[in-house]
């Protein structure tokens, strides 16, 4: 089975771990599509979402090594620590996607976005069976149609209930145990068929950054497990209905502060994702 791995930026520890671990498990990684950190579309998207000040904090943190900044939710270092520990424990020395690709003999193609012509032609040339998504922005139909089996993503929250952004935090907000959900990406936002789900222990959420870091680590492990499953064949998927979930956007800072308070006060989730249902009708 020929694999392609995406990377959201050049220092993505998430992508580095996947590249090394997929190869260690004997998978054929033909290509890594690595998105340049700064491109016009990405800058526009993040400036609109975050404003210039938070955008700059995010970029400078990424350039320093992967952590996202937090104003209310503890140290940014906590977010990246889980992946650093994972890499150290696995004996992975690479600290950039380029270094990982060079060490593993994987071709790296740097692109502006995963949907641009350069990305699509590189992907077609690689003739992948499966794309493993490790960041890089929203995927459009032309890309999704290329791999024979599809594109696998590890979503950072329980699907189908919590789609979109900050889904781990939104799960906690609703009193639901966080988990990562591996699914095939379709044209919707986190609406594709679910392959497997793995919990992220509540105890690992010492604060929001460490929780995010643990979710990232769990998503690497879940993706590795999912790729093995697909490679073996005979797997089953659970289709999603659009009505089963809600799409979330970035959680407002004041709500992050509340969630952080709950974590500090050990006000833990009271139910699993399987037990959770949205109200049937607003009002």
């Amino acid at each position, binding site marked *: 089975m020929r694999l392609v791995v995406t990377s959201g930026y050049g220092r993505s520890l998430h992508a580095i771990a996947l590249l090394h671990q997929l190869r260690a498990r004997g998978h054929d990684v033909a290509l890594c599509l690595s998105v340049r950190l700064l491109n016009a579309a990405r800058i526009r998207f993040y400036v609109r979402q975050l404003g210039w000040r938070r955008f700059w904090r995010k970029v400078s943190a990424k350039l320093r090594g992967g952590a996202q900044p937090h104003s209310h939710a503890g140290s940014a270092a906590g977010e990246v620590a889980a992946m650093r520990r994972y890499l150290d424990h696995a004996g992975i020395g690479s600290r950039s996607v380029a270094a990982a690709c060079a060490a593993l003999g994987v071709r790296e193609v740097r692109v502006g976005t995963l949907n641009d012509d350069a990305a699509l032609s590189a992907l077609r040339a690689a003739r992948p069976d499966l794309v493993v998504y490790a960041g890089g922005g929203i995927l459009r139909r032309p890309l999704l149609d290329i791999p024979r089996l599809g594109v696998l993503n590890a979503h950072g929250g329980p699907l189908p209930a919590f789609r979109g952004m900050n889904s781990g935090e939104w799960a906690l907000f*609703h*009193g639901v145990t966080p988990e990562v959900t591996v699914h095939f990406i379709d044209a919707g936002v986190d609406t594709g068929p679910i392959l497997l789900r793995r919990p992220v222990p509540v105890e690992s959420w010492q604060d929001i950054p460490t929780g995010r870091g643990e979710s990232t680590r769990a998503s690497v492990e879940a993706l590795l497990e999912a790729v093995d499953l697909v490679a073996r064949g005979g797997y089953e998927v659970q289709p999603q209905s659009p009505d089963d979930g809600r799409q*979330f956007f*970035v*959680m*407002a800072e004041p709500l992050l502060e*509340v969630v952080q*308070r709950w974590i500090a006060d050990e006000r833990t989730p009271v139910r699993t994702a399987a037990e959770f249902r949205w109200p049937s009708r607003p*009002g």
Partner: protein
Amino acid sequence: MSQATTLTPRPTAEPTDFQRRLVTHADAAVEWLARSIAACGGRGSAAYYSRWYRPARGWAPPYPETTGYIIETLIAHADFARRPELIELALSQADWIRTLQEDDGALPGGWIAGGRKPPPSIFNTGQMILGLVAAGDRSGDAACLESARRAASWLAGQVDSATGTWMAHSYVAGYSPAYYTRVAWPVLEVWRRTGDSALKSAAVRVLDTIAGWQQPNGAIRNWEFRPGQPAFTHTMAYTIRGFLESARLLGNEGDRFFDVALRAADAVRRRMELRGRLAGAYDAELRGRYWYTCLTGNCQFAIAWMKLGDRTRDARFLSAALKALEFVTRRQSLGAIDPNVRGAIAGSSPLWGRYLTLRYPNWAAKFFVDACHAAHARLQRLVEDGPCGS
């Protein structure tokens, strides 16, 4: 007028940093509102402050419409900040508004400048009713409710039988805006207190008419100040709030109005989340004018989203509301050199944006304070109750 100074107890759980910021910002805005009233000799709140438009004094003449709904804000802040003197100030404004009432119950549009009283206005009468009702509820003074009743009866009598809405006494001649839902709401407030079914019939008739103006994309026709122009978020949120509050007052009978509000507000919320912030105005296709923000519209949408979030139990509305409100808190100056800008909320950000260009309107401060109160209460509930559903 009797004075009521009973204040609600303080919450017990430790507030968050953002809640503390809300208190500071709301206090500053209320201080500014008090200055806007003092600038008019205690008889009404100045419509706005602007050294550009009013180089000599800075303050515009008193604006009865917005003074009306500032009354409820002052009363609410008296409870919020435990400042009973604000109740006295609020009730004195209700007294002033009652002096402006015509024999038929109508209340004036525009400003009171040079002792001249402008002609009656449908919209402005509705907004003043809100203040009269709030004052009456708080003080127990029957004269306030009677004044509100007469105003509401005048409004009910003005509904045009052919179109099912108000056509006369409008801001733009011959144009009946969708934000008249915010007139139906105060009429229903009076109905709830008097049981006068004619008031309810008139209000529901108007609400049904305007509900029929909703477009498939959620936008509502005529929610702009002038036909054909992009709608400021200020008047869009007026329209939505009118539906929301009317639905609350009508109970199950108002569900259809709640649904209209939900569709409109959710369409704007999604656009705000995708774009990262609210535009200053939106056209009929809900394409935003993003080069400026209408700050009062931000606060009004924040309030509407919080109310929608309560009823739908959908925290996405609260998140959107807090983003919209936080945006405004960052644009309120707490240390401006000009003391009359300190605590004020501009019409637009940047200040030269299309809405109330280069001015600090009193209603922006009012809706900002209301939004701060609403956000503070919801955050307090979350802090105390823990994760939703626990």
